[in-house]
C-alpha cells in the first residue's frame, strides 16, 4: 500500500497518477449517466455506442501513421465516433423497438469492424488489445485535459436536464403530455452516454467500459430508493472500484480494465448477498446488452 502511494506521487511513473485522476474525475459522470442507462434499460444502446468508438480510435491511429494531424489523438477519435453513433442510435430508436434492434446491432458491429480495418492498415505495430481491454499507458497529459473538459460538460448537462431526464426515465408518455420533447431528451441522454464512455475508454477498454457504466448503478440500486441516492451511491462506488482496480493491477502487473471490472463485479455480488440476507429487493436489475 505504501509502495502504491509512493508510486502515485513519483514523477517517473506519471501514468498511474493520470489514470487515478481520470478515474476519480469520471466517477460522478459514470454514476449519474450509468443510473440513467440502467433505469431506462438501454445498456444495449450504450454497448453499441461503446463498441463503435473503436472506429474513431482506428481512424486516429491510421491518420497519425500517415502523417495526419497530431492533435487528433485516439481520445478525440473515440469522442467523434461516440457522438456520431449516439446520434445514429437516437434516430433509429425512434422507429420502435422491433425495427431498431437490428439497426443498433449494425452500429455495434460496423463500428468495431471499421476500427479493426483502420488498425490493420496502420503502419507500425498497434496492439488492439490495449484499446479493447484498456491500458493506462495510453493516457497522455493532453488527454487528461480533454477528460476534465468533457467531464465538466457531462456533469453540467446532467444537472441542467435533471428534471426532464427523470421524467423521461419514469414515464416518457407522461413527460410528453407535459409538453416535453422526449426524443430530444433521449438524444441528450445518449450523447451523454457516449461522452461518458470516452472518459475512461483508455483506462478500462471498450469491451469492459459498459460494465463500469451499469454495474455500480445496479449495485447502488440495492440500497437506494431515490434516483439521486442511486446516482450518489453509484458515483462513490465507481471511484472506489477504479482506485482499487488500478492499485491491484499495479501491484500484480495486471491490465487495469480487468482489475477494475473484477472489483465492480465483486461489489455487485456482495450487495446482492447483503440484500438477500437483509431481505431488501433491488430497485433496478441490471441488463447487459
Amino acid at each position, binding site marked *: 500500500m505504501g509502495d502504491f502511494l509512493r508510486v502515485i506521487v513519483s514523477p517517473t511513473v506519471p501514468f498511474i497518477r493520470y489514470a487515478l485522476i481520470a478515474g476519480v474525475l469520471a466517477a460522478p459522470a459514470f454514476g449519474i449517466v450509468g443510473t440513467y442507462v440502467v433505469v431506462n434499460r438501454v445498456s444495449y444502446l450504450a454497448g453499441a455506442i461503446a463498441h463503435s468508438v473503436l472506429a474513431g480510435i482506428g481512424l486516429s491511429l491510421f491518420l497519425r501513421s500517415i502523417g495526419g494531424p497530431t492533435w487528433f489523438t485516439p481520445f478525440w477519435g473515440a469522442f467523434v465516433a461516440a457522438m456520431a453513433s449516439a446520434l445514429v442510435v437516437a434516430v433509429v430508436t425512434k422507429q420502435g423497438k422491433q425495427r431498431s434492434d437490428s439497426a443498433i446491432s449494425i452500429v455495434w458491429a460496423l463500428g468495431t469492424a471499421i476500427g479493426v480495418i483502420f488498425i490493420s492498415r496502420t503502419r507500425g505495430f498497434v496492439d488492439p488489445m490495449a484499446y479493447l481491454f484498456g491500458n493506462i499507458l495510453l493516457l497522455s497529459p493532453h488527454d487528461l485535459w480533454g477528460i476534465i473538459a468533457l467531464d465538466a460538460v457531462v456533469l453540467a448537462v446532467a444537472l441542467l436536464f435533471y428534471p426532464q431526464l427523470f421524467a423521461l426515465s419514469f414515464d416518457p408518455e407522461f413527460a410528453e403530455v407535459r409538453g416535453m*420533447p422526449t426524443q430530444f431528451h433521449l438524444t441528450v441522454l445518449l450523447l451523454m452516454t457516449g461522452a461518458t464512455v470516452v472518459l475512461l475508454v483508455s483506462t478500462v477498454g471498450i469491451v469492459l467500459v459498459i460494465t463500469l457504466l451499469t454495474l455500480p448503478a445496479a449495485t447502488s440500486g440495492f440500497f437506494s430508493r431515490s434516483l439521486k441516492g442511486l446516482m450518489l451511491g453509484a458515483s462513490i462506488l465507481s471511484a472506489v472500484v477504479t482506485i482499487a482496480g488500478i492499485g491491484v493491477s499495479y501491484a500484480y502487473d495486471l491490465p487495469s480494465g480487468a482489475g477494475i471490472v473484477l472489483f465492480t463485479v465483486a461489489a455487485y455480488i456482495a450487495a446482492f448477498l447483503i440484500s438477500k440476507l437483509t431481505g431488501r429487493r433491488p430497485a433496478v436489475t441490471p441488463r447487459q446488452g
Partner: protein
Amino acid sequence: MNSAAAGAQPALELDHVSFAYPGVAIFDDVSFTVPNDGLTQVVGPNGGGKTTLAKLCLGLLKPHSGTIRVLGASAHASRRRIGYVPQHSQYDPQFPALAVDVVMTGRLSRPVGLFRRSDRGAALATLESLGLSDLAHRGFADLSGGQRQRVLLARALVSDPPLLILDEPTANIDRESAARLEELILAQKERFAILLITHDFDFLAGTVDRVLCVNRNAHIHERRSLSEVDLQRLFTGHFHDLAEVDHG
C-alpha cells in the same frame, strides 16, 4: 358553476375523426362533444378504442383525418391543461424515486432547467390536500398499488388542470384502495371535468353525469336518459344490444 365551466368551451369536441394503427382501423368518422363539467364515464370492450381515444385527446396520437378540440384548442396545445393518470402498465413500478419527486414531474413545463422551489411546494401541498403527506418521502417502489395510484393522482392534479383523464384507475388495486381513490376524487370533483375510462361498474357509480360508449365508434348518453338496466348492459359488455340504448 365551477372554474372549468366558466370557459364554456367543451372539454372534448371530436369532428369526423378517423384513426387506425398499422393494419387495424380503430375509429372511422367519429363525432361527439363532451361538455366541460361533471363526470363522463367511458365504457366499451377491450380493443374498442378507449385508451386510443384518451391518447388522441392527449395529443399522444394524431388522427388520420378530422379534428379534435380539447378545452377549445388543439389537443397538442391543450395537453398541459390535462391531468392524466395512465394505466398501471405505462410506468415502471420499481422505479427508484421518492413519491414527492414523482408528483413534481406533473409541474414540468420547460425542456431544460431545474425545478423551482415552488414546484416542490406545490407537490407537497397537493399531497397534503389529498391526505398523502406521510407518503411524500417514501420510495415509490415501496408503496402499495393503491398508494401508487393516489400518488399518480397527485401528479395529475399538481398542475391544477381543468380536465382530468383517468385510464382504468382501479384495474390493479383492491376494493378498499378504490374506495379511498373515489373519496379523493369526489372531494375535489367541482374543480375539474373528469373523463374516466373504466371497467369497474361500482367506481364513482353514483356521480356519473354521462356515459360515452366507445367501440370503434362513440356515442354519448346523458346519465338520466339511461335506465339502470341500460347501464348494467353497457358495463357487462352487451354491446350488441347497444342499438337498444339509442345507438340507432
